[in-house]
C-alpha cells in the first residue's frame, strides 16, 4: 500500500475515536434538555483554550494569564460587532483567532525565555494589564458593562430562533473537533515530542540541536490561537463579553480544568471542561454560597489523590482500546 494509505491506517485509531466523539456529541442534543445543550456549548468552547494550556503543561510551563487570549478573542468579536458592524460568525471567528494569535506572537517573543514561576507570573501580569485597559477605557470598551454580542449569522445564514442555540452548538462542536484533531496531530508531531522532552530536560534538548526557544514560542502562539478561538465561541454562546475574561481568576479556572481533566490525552481537557461546567452549574443551583467550596474541594482531592486528573481513570479502558486497535493494524 502507498504512503497515504499507510498514514491513514496508522491514524485510524485516533480518527475512529474522533468520529466516535463527534457522533456521541452530535446525537446528545436529542436526549438532553435545552439548558444542558447550552452548558455543553460553553464547555466545548472553553475546552479549546484548555487544550492550549495542556500544550504548555507538556512543556513544563504553567500560564496563569491565558485569560489574556480568551479576552482578546472575545473582545475582537465584540469590537467586530460594535465598531465594524460585522455580523457574520465566520468572519468574527477569524478576527478572534487573529487577535489571539497575533497577541501571542508579540507576547510570546518576550515570554518564551522564561520558565517556572516567572512564566506564570509574567503571563498573569500581561493579562491584568489587558484587564486594566478593558476596564478603564469605558467609552471604547464599555468598562465593566461589557459589550453585547447578538447571535451572528453563520456563512450568511441566520438560523430560525428556535433552532438558533442548537445550530451554534453544532458550530462550536465542529470547531471543537477540529481543534481536538489538530491537538492530537501536534502531540504526535516532532514539535510535540520536542516539547515533552523540554519538560524532561531542557539542556539535553539544546545539546541535541533542537531549538528550545523556537519550540516554546510556536507552542505559545498555538495556545494563543486556541485561546482566541475559545473566546469568540464563548462570546457567541453567552452573548456578552466582560473585562473579567482577562482577570486572573478566569485564567486560574482554565488551569484548574486542565488539571481536573489531566494532561495525558487530547480528550482530557474536554472531559475536564464538561465535568467542570456541569458540576459548577449544579453546585451553584444546590447552594449558591458554597459552590466555590465544592469546586475547591474537588480540585484539592484531585491534586492529592488523583494527580493524573480525571482522564487517568480511563487508563484500563485506554489500554484495551490500544490493544484492540493495534490488533486491527496487523
Amino acid at each position, binding site marked *: 500500500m502507498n504512503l497515504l494509505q499507510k498514514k491513514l491506517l496508522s491514524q485510524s485509531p485516533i480518527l475512529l475515536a474522533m468520529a466516535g466523539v463527534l457522533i456521541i456529541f452530535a446525537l446528545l442534543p436529542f436526549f438532553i434538555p435545552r439548558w444542558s445543550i447550552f452548558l455543553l456549548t460553553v464547555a466545548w468552547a472553553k475546552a479549546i483554550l484548555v487544550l492550549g494550556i495542556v500544550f504548555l503543561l507538556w512543556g513544563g510551563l504553567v500560564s496563569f494569564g491565558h485569560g489574556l487570549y480568551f479576552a482578546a478573542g472575545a473582545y475582537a468579536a465584540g469590537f467586530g460587532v460594535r465598531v465594524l458592524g460585522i455580523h457574520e460568525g465566520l468572519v468574527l471567528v477569524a478576527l478572534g483567532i487573529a487577535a489571539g494569535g497575533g497577541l501571542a506572537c508579540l507576547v510570546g517573543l518576550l515570554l518564551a525565555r522564561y520558565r517556572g514561576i516567572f512564566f506564570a507570573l*509574567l503571563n498573569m*501580569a*500581561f493579562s491584568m494589564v489587558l484587564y486594566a485597559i478593558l476596564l478603564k477605557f469605558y467609552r471604547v470598551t464599555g468598562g465593566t458593562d461589557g459589550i453585547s454580542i447578538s447571535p451572528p449569522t453563520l456563512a450568511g445564514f441566520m438560523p430560525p430562533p428556535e433552532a438558533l442555540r442548537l445550530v451554534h452548538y453544532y458550530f462550536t462542536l465542529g470547531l471543537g473537533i477540529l481543534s481536538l484533531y489538530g491537538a492530537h496531530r501536534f502531540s504526535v508531531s516532532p514539535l510535540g515530542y520536542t516539547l515533552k522532552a523540554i519538560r524532561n530536560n531542557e539542556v539535553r534538548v539544546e545539546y541535541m540541536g533542537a531549538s528550545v526557544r523556537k519550540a516554546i514560542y510556536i507552542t505559545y502562539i498555538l495556545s494563543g490561537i486556541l485561546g482566541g478561538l475559545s473566546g469568540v465561541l464563548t462570546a457567541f454562546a453567552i452573548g456578552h463579553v466582560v473585562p473579567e475574561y482577562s482577570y486572573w481568576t478566569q485564567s486560574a479556572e482554565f488551569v484548574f480544568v486542565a488539571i481536573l481533566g489531566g494532561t495525558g490525552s487530547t480528550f482530557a481537557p474536554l472531559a475536564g471542561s464538561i465535568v467542570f461546567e456541569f458540576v459548577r452549574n449544579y453546585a451553584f443551583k444546590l447552594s449558591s*454560597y458554597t*459552590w466555590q*467550596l465544592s469546586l*475547591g474541594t474537588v480540585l*484539592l482531592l484531585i491534586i492529592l489523590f488523583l494527580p493524573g486528573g480525571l482522564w487517568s481513570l480511563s487508563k484500563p479502558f485506554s489500554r484495551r482500546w490500544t490493544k484492540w486497535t493495534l490488533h486491527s493494524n496487523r
Partner: protein
Amino acid sequence: MKILTIIFVDGIVFASWLFLVSVGLTFIYGVLRILNVAHGSLYALGGYMGASMVLYYLQTGATPYLTYFVLLGAALFIGIVAGSLIETIFLRRVYHREEEVQLLLTFSLFLILEDVIKLVWGVSPYFADKPYALLGQMRLGGIIYAQYVFLLPGIALASGAIIWGIINRTRFGKIIISVITDREICTSLGVNVPRVRTFAFIIGAILATLGGAFTAPMTALVPGIGVEVIVLAFAVVAIGGMGSLGGALLGSLLVGLARAAAIHLFPELDLFTIYLVMSLVLLFRPQGLFGEVEVRRI
C-alpha cells in the same frame, strides 16, 4: 507643592498596606518555596475576625480605645490557627511535587476559604469603623486625613523590623536560613525541618492577617476582598524579588508611590501602574530587584 504632599502621604499609606500583605507572601516563598495563593484569604480572615471581634467588644460597652489591641489579638489568633491548619494538613503533602501543583493546591484552598468566610460571617458587609474615627484628624497638604491611617506605616515598620530581627538576630532565624539553603543537610544535622516550616508559615500567615485586621476599620468587609489583594501582593513580590524582605519593602514603596502619583496626576492609568511596573521589572530583571537568580540544574 500641596499635591506632592498628598501624593507622598497617600503613597506611603498605600505602600504600608502593600508591604503588610506582601511581606508574608515573600517570606513564605523564601522559606517554603511555595507561592501561596491563599494569602488573600488569610488577609480576608484577618479582616473579618478583626471586624467581628471589634464589633463584639464594643457591644460589651468597654472603652473603645482598646479596640486596637482587639484587632491585634484577633489577627494573631486567626493567623496562628489558620496558618498551622493549612500548613500541617495540606501543604505538607505537596512539598515534593512540582511548583504548579503547589500553586494549584493553594488556589483550591483559596476557593474553599472564600466560601468558609461566607458561611461563618455571612454575606452582608461588616463595618468596624470605630477605631478609624477614634484617633482624630490631621491636616496635611491642605486636606484632612484621619490619623488612623498613620498606624499602618507604624505597623508595617514594626512587622518588618520584627521579621528582620527574627531572621538575623535569633537562633531560630539562623535555622531558617540554613533550611532555606540546604534542607537535606539540616535534616541530617537534626533540625526538625517540618516544625521550622510550620512556624515559618504561621509567621507569614500572621503578617497577612495583621494587614487584614488593621485595614478593616478603613474599609468594609465584603466577600471577595481577598481576590484583589492576592494579585497586588504577587505583583509587589515579583517586583521586589521572591523571598527578599528588602525587595518587598522596595517593591511596596515603588508601587505605592507610583499608584498614588497615577491617581492624582493620570487617573486613567491607576490600575495599570502596578502591572506595568511588574511587567517592566520582570522583563529586564526577571528575578526581581533583589531576587536571586536560580541556577539551572543539569
